[in-house]
């Protein structure tokens, strides 16, 4: 899934930019003197305010301009369902829905999510009533350690909202961006297929 492209940056561009920042001593705001960067108006180095819409609720967060959506969800808003594991757009444990599409939240800058609809695992259940995909994961025992599970479920929800009649082949393709190190893949596939209408 080309999640990073949804935010307008390729994965390579994104890692290049953040990597260059890390190497240039700019982290921590200790920028020192020098010319301001050319191009569009710069923001920072102090904290900036990002207005997000998370699970239908407007949420403001103050963060560094380089903070990822995952940083803001976890550290700023205390929504720790999306996990950080690889931090480089490979494993899918941080998957959330951005305007309905699954994205790796570690590969989206918080700024890029401004004024867009973010949905996380915390927004799925209605009180104690689980979302059908959540219920299917429990019924099919589609996890062991559970660390990848929120990301798996958000990928599945994103897929099934786009394609309620997803076939088993659609499910395999739609779920291929989420790794499970405990290798519960067969049960994850069974759980998602149980909710999908396509047979």
């Amino acid at each position, binding site marked *: 899934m080309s999640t990073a492209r949804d935010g307008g940056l390729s994965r390579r561009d994104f890692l290049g930019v953040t990597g260059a920042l*890390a190497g240039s*001593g700019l*982290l*921590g*705001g*200790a920028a020192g003197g020098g010319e301001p960067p050319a191009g569009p108006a710069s923001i920072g180095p102090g904290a900036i305010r990002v207005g997000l819409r998370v699970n239908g609720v407007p949420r403001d967060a103050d963060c*560094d301009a380089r903070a990822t959506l995952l*940083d803001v969800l*976890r*550290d700023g808003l*205390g*929504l*720790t*369902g*999306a*996990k*950080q*594991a*690889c*931090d*480089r757009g490979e*494993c899918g*444990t941080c998957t959330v829905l951005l305007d309905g599409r699954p994205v790796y939240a570690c590969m989206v800058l918080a700024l890029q999510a401004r004024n867009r609809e973010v949905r*996380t*695992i*915390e927004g*799925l*259940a209605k009180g104690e009533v*689980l979302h059908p995909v*959540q*219920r299917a*994961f*429990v*019924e099919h*025992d589609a*996890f062991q*350690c*559970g*660390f*990848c*599970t*929120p990301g798996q*479920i958000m990928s599945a929800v994103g897929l099934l909202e786009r394609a309620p009649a997803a076939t088993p082949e659609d499910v395999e393709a739609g779920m291929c961006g989420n*790794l499970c*190190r*405990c290798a519960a893949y067969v049960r994850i596939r069974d759980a998602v297929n149980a909710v999908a209408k396509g047979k």
Partner: protein
Amino acid sequence: MPKTKLRIGWPGNFREIQAEIPAGDPPPWDADSKLSVVGARLPRVEGPDKVTGRAKYTSDMAPAGMLTGGVLRSPHAHARATALDLGPARKLPGVKAALELEREPRYAGQAVAAVAAESPLQAQAALDAIVVTWEVLPHVTDPEEARRPDAPRVLGGRNPNARGGASENAADEAACGRALAAASASVDLTFRTPVVEHTCLESHGSLASWEGDALTVWDSTQAVASVRDGLARGLQVPANSVRVVKEHMGGGFGSKLGMGETALIAARLAKEAGRPVRVLNDRKAEQTTGGNRPSSVQRLRLGADKAGTLSVMWLESSGTGGVGGGAGCSGPFRTLYRAGVMRDEHTDILTNAGRAQAFRAPGHVQGMFALESAIDALAIEAGIDPLEFRLRNDASDLRRAEYAEGARRIATGRSVRRARGRMYRRLRDRWTPRRSRPGSTPA
């Protein structure tokens, strides 16, 4: 002790035994026990927490006032810090603690110093500000090079890089050679397996918090008691002043059985800062320091007689678990089959690389791959179907029964459970037209 009659075994091979059970112990289960939980389809009790994001892992814990720990790691496989100055880091905004850990790291990634700061970015800035001058020292990362007499000593001094020998009761080499010469079929094969990393999705990490002399550590661990004991030893404090908490863990696979370095670092930083400190491995640190399965090189020489019975088994193995951790892989060799003449010898090789940790039945993955591949090859040399060869040679009655039952189910494509039935039918479709040569099965 009271005696209890138990019926044990497997279908077609049950027997009764008299077992002595200590007074007060519950009766053991046997073939006639009626079990209501084991074998039943029950949802996990923690299921709803895990599918809603409510389940809290160590990396999710963030108490008020928590600082972020960062670790400076060696860029070199072996080097000495001729200068290591934490002063500039301590002066930066938000930095509350800094520790020197090691001036002569012996693998790339080894922890050298640590800081704690108000935010992750401040912690990173502090690590960048640490002044360190490295003198790169001789090192060796290739296990074959490490065995040479002139190789740099990984642990320094006179510690040898290679240690090992033949196991107890091993036949001598001459006897093995004679048995191989007399065998009617034999193979001499060498198998190599690489170092493999656990790659837990949740990295090793710890959150430490002191209240007076009492320490509480949330740790991503498979063994809270070993972390408690490790902390008590490392900090020189009584074990009963240390509490270790783990509710959920994002994968361990053996690499989290002992105390990881983050626990001790977090506890020391928290002590100095007077605030809770969380230290999480980033992905690079996890892959270089979080543990690994050692490599292996296994030379297997096997021989069988005319009847297809193993007559000689000879394993020469070596492997590296970096700066520590045994690389032995002879478990399957010593337990699966018997032969009249058996010899296994193993050499652990130290290299300047991250330390091995237990990984899913240590040694058995490498050992099983090599041994079973060699058994297949020997069966072909002997002109015997590989399954039949195992049925003739396997040392375990139970395993022979399992092989036969597996073959029966595959051949009939039937199973008590529907899902398994599908699996067996798929296997049957590949099994029925197979020829006995490994690799000849149609894909």
